[in-house]
């Protein structure tokens, strides 16, 4: 749960003004639903790496379509560390 709170705080920084913070749900898709552009998706990944002290690879980035995808990747990386 704590991971999700931290992740939401990171996503919020890159949310366009016309998208409400309340719309960040587990099933939300970053690009299609939260209207986050691909450059900001990279920023989210870089912030996630710093926040959770993990390293993401290109294939993680390819899989990261929704908030749930990101959370699963974060939790798998933390467990593997």
């Amino acid at each position, binding site marked *: 749960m704590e991971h999700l709170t931290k992740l939401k705080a990171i996503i919020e920084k890159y949310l366009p003004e016309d998208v409400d913070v309340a719309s960040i749900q587990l099933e939300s898709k970053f690009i299609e639903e939260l209207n986050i*552009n*691909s*450059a900001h998706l*990279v*920023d989210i*990944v*870089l912030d996630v790496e710093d926040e959770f002290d993990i390293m993401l690879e290109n294939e993680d*980035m390819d899989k990261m379509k929704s908030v749930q995808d990101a959370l699963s990747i974060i939790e798998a990386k933390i467990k593997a560390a």
Partner: protein
Amino acid sequence: MDTNYIRDLLPFDHPYLFVDTITSVTQENIVGSYTFKKDEFFYKGHFKDNPVTPGTILTECCAQLALVCHGLFLSNANSDMVKSRLFFLASSEMDFYSVVLPNEKVIVTAEKIYFRFGKLKSKVKMTKEDGTLVCKGVLSGMQKNTEDG
């Protein structure tokens, strides 16, 4: 090292190519130059009877070198890769210090902040040949394969 192969890979062409030469390139930095020709298309309207290089074009000149040329180098690009790749500006924050007139040569220097997941972010600086600062700032851009959508 031969650096001009990078220029030949660029997806730009006249009248929207603003790189003449690449002087040096490493994993961290790139340096290049461009001379604004007196018949560039934008001088006719910017401004009426008073040709001055637009700030957006100076930014474009910086971006072509700092983001596209350096990005091609950093991703070991070849001509086949370039054909299926899109390059776009992601963000720019530039400050301007002096004007560039027709026939003036500018030197662009860029230092990579990071290049990850196709996004290149760099500190850039443009000067004239005598070292006069034209503009400086931070630019970022994305490379994407067209088939990725």
